[in-house]
């Protein structure tokens, strides 16, 4: 068996620092000084992985591990996703630590990956790609990528997307599945056409209530007769102006891991309703019954942790709940007494808007309102920032709490336990030591 022994960055650097530089970052220091970067490629990769620029990169010794990475237990690296923590490599599931989500809009490299199956092979040529609309429509249709671009109006929106299981690691008894922490959320800019425009062209019948989406990802068993995942939404969500069929992410064609060449984006809803490698939309006169439509559900009523709940007592998750993150500084920071700390992050609320963001440095006893920006468009996450003063030396935890436009706020503790560990929107915190 071709086993693999995972070794940390630390171990690799201890053994042969320059080789480690070359292997991990494609970095070669300048030959005479043994400092800096011979090519800028290694610098870019390293800066992305750390999540910030390296102002003094020219002085950085060869074979030096940036502290930001030395403290993680990152062992494997996905090409194009260098800073992400890998939860699973088959299928690929990976999330960034919170501080890598600091960008206003999430870059491709820092966007989480949640795959259910195997992405289609690279030979899939965008020019030959087609997808169909069928089911409860008067005019079943087939589109090429070119048709889609030529026939419908283009829109570019920043859209937040969060995995339904983001935060699952916080539940006890543990819930089955990938143990996501805080990073399975993102807000990137997508270019595409409105799904509603496409469905209207296919002329929906009156019987329509739900959609069913199919992608080209192969089931893990490699059996082509089983869909790896096939979910959908009520037709009203599909007809929303901000639900797109997208081919571009942050100004570039979708990366393979994000659905090249075509995906749906159902913003604010569990990521599973935003299928990648889109091949087929089936319009249904009943709730879709595709693979994993029985998942992504939570009990209709609160249950005691550990309870098994029958399927008929479960509701399909629609909009994700209000939530926020502190993306700068990174947790664990040390600051000098008397200095104010600038903190910032994002807040989002599924289909809703975020009304207020508050921060606390005393375990929730008192709260200070943060500056909150409007979203650039509906369904974009909202940036917030605050200036915090610490009264004396010591160890603090800075908490953040968002409230949506219906007055619903994030819970302090992990909210309603559910068998599959979905929609954990408990507050995010960072540790700050003042000395």
């Amino acid at each position, binding site marked *: *068996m*071709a*086993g*693999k*022994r*995972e*070794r*940390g*960055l630390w*171990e*690799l650097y201890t053994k042969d620092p320059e080789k480690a530089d070359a*292997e*991990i970052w494609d970095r070669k220091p300048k030959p005479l000084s043994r400092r800096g970067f011979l090519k800028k490629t290694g610098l870019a990769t390293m800066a992305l992985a750390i999540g910030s620029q390296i102002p003094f990169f020219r002085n950085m010794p060869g074979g030096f591990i940036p502290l930001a990475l030395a403290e993680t*237990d990152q*062992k*494997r*690296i*996905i*090409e194009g996703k260098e800073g992400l923590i*890998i*939860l*699973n*490599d*088959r*299928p*690929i599931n990976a999330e960034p630590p919170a501080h890598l989500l600091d960008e206003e809009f999430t870059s491709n490299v820092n966007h989480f990956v949640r795959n259910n199956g195997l*992405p289609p092979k*690279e030979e899939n040529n965008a020019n030959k790609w087609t997808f169909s609309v069928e089911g409860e429509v008067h005019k079943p249709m087939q589109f090429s990528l070119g048709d889609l671009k030529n026939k419908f109006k283009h829109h570019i929106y920043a859209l937040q997307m969060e995995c339904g299981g983001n*935060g699952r*690691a*916080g539940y006890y*008894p*543990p819930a*089955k*599945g*990938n*143990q996501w*922490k*805080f990073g399975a959320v993102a807000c990137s800019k997508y270019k595409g056409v409105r799904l509603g425009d496409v469905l209207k062209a296919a002329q929906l019948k009156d019987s329509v209530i739900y959609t069913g989406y199919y992608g080209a990802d192969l*089931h*893990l*068993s*490699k*059996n082509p007769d*089983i869909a790896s995942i096939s979910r959908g939404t009520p037709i009203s969500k599909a007809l929303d102006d901000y639900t797109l069929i997208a081919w571009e992410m942050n100004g570039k064609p979708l*990366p*393979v*891991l994000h659905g*090249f060449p075509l995906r749906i984006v159902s913003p604010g809803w569990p990521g599973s309703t935003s299928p990648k490698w889109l091949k087929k939309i089936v319009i249904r006169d009943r709730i879709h019954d595709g*693979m994993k439509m029985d998942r992504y559900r939570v009990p209709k009523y609160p249950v005691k942790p550990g309870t098994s709940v029958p399927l008929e007592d479960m509701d399909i998750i629609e909009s994700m709940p209000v939530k926020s993150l502190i993306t700068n500084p990174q*947790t664990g920071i040390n600051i000098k007494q008397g200095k104010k700390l600038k903190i910032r992050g994002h807040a989002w609320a599924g289909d809703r808007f975020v009304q207020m963001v508050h921060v606390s440095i005393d*375990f929730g006893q008192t709260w200070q309102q943060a500056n909150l920006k409007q979203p650039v468009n509906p369904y974009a996450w909202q940036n917030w920032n605050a200036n915090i003063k610490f009264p004396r030396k010591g*160890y603090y*935890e800075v908490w953040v709490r968002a409230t949506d436009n219906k007055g619903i706020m994030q819970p*302090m*503790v*992990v909210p309603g336990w559910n068998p599959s560990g979905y929609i954990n929107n*408990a507050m995010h*915190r960072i*540790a700050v030591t003042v000395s």
Partner: protein
Amino acid sequence: MLVTITVVAQEETNYQGLPTGEGIMLVLESCTACHSADIILQNHMSRKAWEVTIALMQKERGMGKLNKRDKKIILDYLSKFQGMDSDRSSSKTIRRRNNPMYDFDYRPNPL
């Protein structure tokens, strides 16, 4: 546009990080043909819940049939090494398996 994962170093077999113990070869053969061991290592469940999981894998995820003896060996392995509380304080992979979401000095609500 290949999707590649670089494993930083390759060395001798370590069974994808699964703890060595009776039944490990059968677990590797039965479970990791489709998915990697990562998803097993991330989960801690009762024997009953592992049994339900295997049934789900067989019903919709393309896992083959198991005879009674093999099923027992696999369930023995999973409930010993990936049981509810079996291994959170032991073994080399403690950090990975502990998987603390809240890596702070104060737990969110320890009561």
